[in-house]
């Protein structure tokens, strides 16, 4: 199937699908010639306006990932993920999620992430369909690409090809003066934009106006303290708006308009819906150092793209149970500081194997009241990997009389055990025959260790040190 549009007096193909491409059809081909090549070709009329509208709709959908999104007709979308990638677990994870979700919606897309819009444009179209170029390391990746990857007009590309310039590397080495005389500003400007030497303002979509507040400044601002004050005022305004609707924010986007058009944005997420202006402002302020004010910022816009219902509530009286919202604020700040997955609680698992007896749970998961069985003594530290020890055992089934760990020999004064633990064969097949005999031993100085002997190997039991210290 192809789409055909009018180009002057001729009707030409404007877009082709995969089957048509396989049949040798390309955009720009005359429709009559295409129909001669592929009899029975399905043709629909091209509708550039509807295409652009669809692209804008898709771009608006991308706003769930980052606050700054710009459609790039005819077939691209720019997403400025600076300050927002951490919400998806990093840049690579963001690209993977984006591509997967678009694929599920029926879009075949190529995604790339780079320092500049130009480099990302080139990488998305010429490199691997899911590329992350390293920060400040895009130059070597770009040099090998063909010149059209710099978004040059077809005429310019063919003109340069006549001079023998076909790759980006060729253009980099050319003196600029003669080039400008012959082809105008375009090649040099596009090259600088891709490499980050020249700025490139993009026409970002304005997010839907729901739950958004803005402040315009008579004079451009830029001082960090001023930005923090602006964030505070916007948070207060937004909190008021959210309170009227009984909502709390789960994500906040703060966008500053820079005088040169290079918008700057930061986003933060919260673990529970919140409309506490002080808390939200504090979260945003942590991220403000990422804003590059350049020659000044003349407008700020704060929006809450994700909101959840949050009813009115009373403040906790002193001495009451700790306020769950207060804990949520702390968790938000810690997650912002350390990254997702690094703030957690530990919860018991019914497993005899010490390594499996603990699992991480979400920091705000409800308290279960469950703890580990109190009758089994357990060490204070568990070595992540048991360390082998050389032992001197008087009898095969008795605790050792001495052992050597990390090069130091310790004589065992007292011991207790064994506590036999069987392999959990329903979890791992090779554990059918695995057993561990744990011994608590105390050396002559009174230090206590948690040793075990595994009964797995044919050449005899091996001894390991697994835990240290015990109450």
């Amino acid at each position: 199937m192809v789409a055909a549009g009018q180009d002057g007096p001729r009707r030409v193909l404007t877009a082709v699908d995969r089957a048509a491409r396989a049949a040798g059809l390309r955009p720009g081909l005359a429709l009559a010639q295409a129909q001669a090549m592929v009899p029975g070709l399905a043709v629909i009329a091209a509708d550039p306006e509807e295409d652009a509208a669809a692209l804008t709709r898709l771009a608006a959908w991308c706003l769930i990932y980052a606050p700054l999104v710009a459609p790039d007709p005819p077939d691209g979308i720019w997403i400025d993920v600076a300050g927002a990638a951490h919400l998806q677990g990093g840049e690579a994870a963001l690209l993977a999620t984006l591509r997967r979700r678009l694929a599920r919606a029926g879009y075949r897309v190529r995604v790339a992430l780079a320092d500049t819009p130009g480099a990302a444009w080139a990488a998305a179209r010429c490199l691997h369909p899911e590329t992350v170029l390293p920060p400040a390391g895009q130059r070597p990746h770009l040099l090998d690409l063909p010149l059209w990857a710099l978004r040059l007009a077809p005429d310019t590309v063919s003109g340069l090809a006549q001079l023998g310039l076909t790759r980006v590397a060729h253009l980099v080495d050319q003196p600029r003066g003669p080039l400008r005389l012959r082809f105008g500003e375009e090649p040099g400007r596009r090259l600088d934009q891709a490499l980050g030497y020249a700025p490139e303002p993009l026409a970002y979509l304005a997010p839907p106006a729901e739950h958004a507040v803005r402040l315009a400044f008579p004079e451009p601002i830029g001082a960090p303290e001023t930005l923090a004050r602006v964030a505070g005022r916007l948070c207060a305004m937004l909190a008021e708006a959210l309170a009227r609707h009984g909502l709390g924010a789960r994500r906040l986007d703060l966008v500053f308009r820079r005088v040169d058009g290079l918008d700057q944005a930061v986003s933060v997420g919260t673990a529970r819906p919140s409309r506490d202006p002080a808390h939200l402002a504090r979260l945003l302020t942590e991220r403000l150092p990422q804003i590059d004010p350049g020659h000044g910022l003349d407008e700020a816009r704060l929006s809450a793209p994700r909101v959840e219902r949050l009813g009115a509530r009373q403040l906790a009286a002193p001495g009451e149970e700790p306020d769950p919202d207060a804990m949520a604020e702390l968790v938000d700040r810690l997650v912002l500081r350390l990254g997702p997955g690094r703030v957690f609680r530990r919860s018991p698992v019914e497993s005899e194997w010490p390594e499996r007896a603990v699992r991480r749970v979400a920091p705000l998961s409800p308290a279960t009241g469950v703890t580990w069985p109190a009758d089994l003594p357990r060490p204070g530290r568990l070595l992540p990997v048991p360390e082998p020890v050389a032992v001197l055992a008087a009898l095969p089934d008795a605790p050792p009389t001495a052992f050597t760990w990390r090069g130091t020999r310790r004589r065992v004064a007292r011991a207790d055990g064994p506590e036999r633990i069987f392999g959990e064969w329903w979890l791992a097949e090779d554990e059918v025959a695995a057993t561990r005999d744990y011994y608590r031993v105390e050396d002559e100085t009174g230090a206590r260790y948690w040793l075990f002997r595994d009964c797995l190997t044919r050449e005899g039991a091996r001894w390991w040190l697994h835990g240290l210290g015990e109450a």
Partner: protein
Amino acid sequence: MRQAGRERQLAALREQIGGLAPEAAGRPVLSFGVDPIDTHLPGGGLRLGAVHEVLAAGPVDGEGALAALFVAAILARLPGPVLWCLTRRDLFAPGLAAVGLHPDRVLYAETRRETEVLPTMEEGLRHRGLAAVVGEVARLGLTPSRRLQLAAEGSGGLALVIRRWGAAVPEPNAAATRWGVTAAPSPALPVPGLSRARWTVALVRARGAEPRTWLLEAPDAKGRLRLPPELADRPLAAPARRAAAG
């Protein structure tokens, strides 16, 4: 006579100095429930809203197992949620639960680098909902410890710093007390097995108190330390020795 006069003078001076350090005055404390320690410490226990340091030193407790248990036992006797900041993954929650620290109460923050631990602790201390904040670090310098102290004063939370890895070098810092916990041989049982562990708990440094060492029984399931029964029966022994030394 002259001796008594000097004692009075010293007491007056102590009071004056105590007045100079505002954080010391009238702060609530957490008592150990062990008489000799509580009477020895100014205020009768660990001052809340202050930084306390626990050294995990020496070949025996190089991994800080006893220090972690000592800290967990303190937290067990303090109501409210606590934050534990760490970089290593060797802390064993069942062991902490065995001295009375329930897993529902502990929020863990795992940092990538050790340098992030102290700022994370400070963030936690600024937060008023936490009863205590624990951090495991190698070093605690003067400036970071002062920052922790200020944050703890503001919220009234207890700041406990476990000094791991090369903690043998004492550094001057703003910690109100510095503790060291080492293992001591436990009494033999008539049958094979282990009795309750014993610790030598040392107060290495404290503002307003002299260094001192106690032999104690390791904490029970509620985090209570105890004097060994054979020592508890002789309450007058320690003061008598002290008078003789003075």
